[in-house]
């Protein structure tokens, strides 16, 4: 076996259209490519000339799975340009809707996209034939996250209630009470989920990632914080472009993000968890320890456990926010357009999501830049394939291909998000 190519022509159980190709020569992995063939949609270009107030509605359409992340990074960046700060109950409501998205998106990934890899099923529907109660629990947990999105956002996908300055309508306290009942159940279900996924059989693979995530003084990060790395980087969102760059590599399928002068880095649950363990609620910390996690996690196959811990945290945090909620006097703070540049970085379920806007004096968007988590993670995903697959080359082709797919799914790639600035593969391997 001198030479062998492992190809997956259409990656399944990921969001969007991608493929992967691993070339093995003389018993070693020679190259690994995650290919993107999803057509680009040019969001940065079409945002120019739009009103600042339209950015949250338009950027939500980048991703149907994490629209709140786009809305949040957009409103924070624009508020930064307009010199506005949103505090108190309105800030808490933003955190609450973000909890909803994490629960919904992570639970989708845990139960429907990732767990079938560990238990040997093609998908969750096939898994439901043998484990109906487990799949039902996952669906109900996902529904609890979506219930937050529906109530606060109006609907689960592309919520309509988020605006620059706050919300169009703030909920009344009594409207949140039924959510609290549902979330109290969800918190128990999340705890059971942590225990369930912790019982899976994990490949013994670790890698010394450079983790990048937001860090905040008091909170596990959603909307605000400094951009911190495990190698000592510590910057504000406005400095992102000074420290991170994308380069286009020959024969590569994508723009690759790097820390200037450094290598690939990882954003997402592993990074957030490892850089912010002490900011998790006591319940989430205890569940993580019981699940066998340390305060950092370098094994990407265990990311499913970290995601479950984050779901538990999000349920816990949502309950705290609902309990402490006091209705704001106005659903949004007033904003006045002015010329300027604004920066925003928030924690999408899949990791750091950076937006930058340059506004004209009347609030028209002159320039937009968006860096989604999956494009930042793509070099790390390929590096995982290069490092980890070598130990499995004795497996039959189909099993090896499955291992490759699982290795990609560890990072929950969202290709729909990444696409608008990934290079399109001209040759479609079909």
């Amino acid at each position, binding site marked *: 076996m001198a030479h062998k190519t492992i190809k997956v022509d259409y990656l399944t159980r990921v969001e969007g259209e991608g493929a992967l190709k691993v070339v093995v020569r003389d018993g070693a992995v020679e190259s690994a490519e995650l290919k993107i063939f999803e057509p680009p949609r040019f969001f940065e270009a079409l945002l120019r000339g739009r009103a600042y107030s339209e950015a949250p509605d338009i950027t939500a359409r980048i991703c*149907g799975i994490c629209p709140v992340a786009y809305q949040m990074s957009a409103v924070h960046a624009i508020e930064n340009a307009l010199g506005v700060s949103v505090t108190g109950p309105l800030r808490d409501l933003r955190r609450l809707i973000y909890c909803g998205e994490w629960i919904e998106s992570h639970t989708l990934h845990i139960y429907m996209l990732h767990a079938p890899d560990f238990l040997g099923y093609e998908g969750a529907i096939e898994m439901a034939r043998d484990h109906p109660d487990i799949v039902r629990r996952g669906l109900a947990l996902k529904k609890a996250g979506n219930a937050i999105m529906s109530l606060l956002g109006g609907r689960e996908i592309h919520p309509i209630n988020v605006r620059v300055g706050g919300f169009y309508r703030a909920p009344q306290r009594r409207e949140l009470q039924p959510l609290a009942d549902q979330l109290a159940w969800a918190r128990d279900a999340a705890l059971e989920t942590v225990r369930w996924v912790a019982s899976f059989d994990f490949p013994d693979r670790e890698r010394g990632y450079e983790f990048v995530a937001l860090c905040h003084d008091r909170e596990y990060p959603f909307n605000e914080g400094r951009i911190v790395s495990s190698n000592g980087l510590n910057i504000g969102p406005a400095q992102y472009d000074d420290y991170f760059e994308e380069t286009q590599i020959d024969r590569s399928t994508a723009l690759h993000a790097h820390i200037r002068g450094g290598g690939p880095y990882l954003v997402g649950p592993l990074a957030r968890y490892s850089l912010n363990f002490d900011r998790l609620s006591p319940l989430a910390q205890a569940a993580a320890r019981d699940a066998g996690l340390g305060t950092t996690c370098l094994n990407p196959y265990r990311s499913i456990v970290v995601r479950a811990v984050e779901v538990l945290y999000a349920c816990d945090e949502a309950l705290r926010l609902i309990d402490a909620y006091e209705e704001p006097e106005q659903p949004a703070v007033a904003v006045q357009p002015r010329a300027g540049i604004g920066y925003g970085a928030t924690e999408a379920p899949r990791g750091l999501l950076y937006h930058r806007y340059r506004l004209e004096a009347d609030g028209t968007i002159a320039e937009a830049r968006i860096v989604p988590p999956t494009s930042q993670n793509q070099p790390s995903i390929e590096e995982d394939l290069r490092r980890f697959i070598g130990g499995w080359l004795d497996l039959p082709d189909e099993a090896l291909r499955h291992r490759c797919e699982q290795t990609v799914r560890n990072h929950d790639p969202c290709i729909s998000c990444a696409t608008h600035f990934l290079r399109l593969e001209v040759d479609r391997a079909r």
Partner: protein
Amino acid sequence: MPKPHRPKLAVWKFASCDGCQLSLLDCEDELLAVAGAVEIAHFPEATRATVKGPYDLSLVEGSITTRHDAERIQHIRRSSRFLVTIGACATAGGIQALRNFADVQEYLSVVYARPEYIQTLATSTAIVDHVAVDFELRGCPIDKRQLLEVISAFLAGRRPVTPPHSVCVECKLAGNVCVMVAHGTPCLGPATHAGCGALCPAYHRGCYGCFGPMETPNASSLTHWLRRLGMDDRALQRVYRTFNANAQVFREESERHGP
């Protein structure tokens, strides 16, 4: 007893955000029942398993933006007994159809350092511009109850019931106060296709047209009222040019207010 034949369901993706096919997975209470009533034969976002066509029902998400996709939809049409398009990308070209009003080469140079690597068409177009479509389900995103109605109707061999009247009617049914009359908030509700349940007015905001034009809209009259509420040509063009910018009525109305 022989197993009853379950219709084969396929889900296909073109240029899109994945949100409309996610709507099927968001049917948390109904998903397993749907999976029992149909055979999920091709749904890459949900399962690795795939069954060869032909398919009884194909749900198509996304718009046509590459030559390859223009060919791919022809194959899908040929292997589908019924083809239903889901969402604004598939029914009208989506937000990415804003390129239809611009120079796509210029768009390319804004987003990509090496635009020569990108293959794209100058336009983003609806599926119905390429193949015959049996039913179009509107929305950005679609409403999941309407999606279940479409699947149920197909299983029962009847036409789906998705009223083509305006969002205004839904507002009246919901008992919402009219945001335009009571608060002077610009609202596309009078010209917009129903389906969302009049969400935005219930949240004190004007409709922004996620479901595209209703069956027989009077957009020029609506424009007249929007102008009286203070919208200038630029704002009017923007309000018609979002997720359904390339739907005929919205396109024509937007073109009256600038290039």
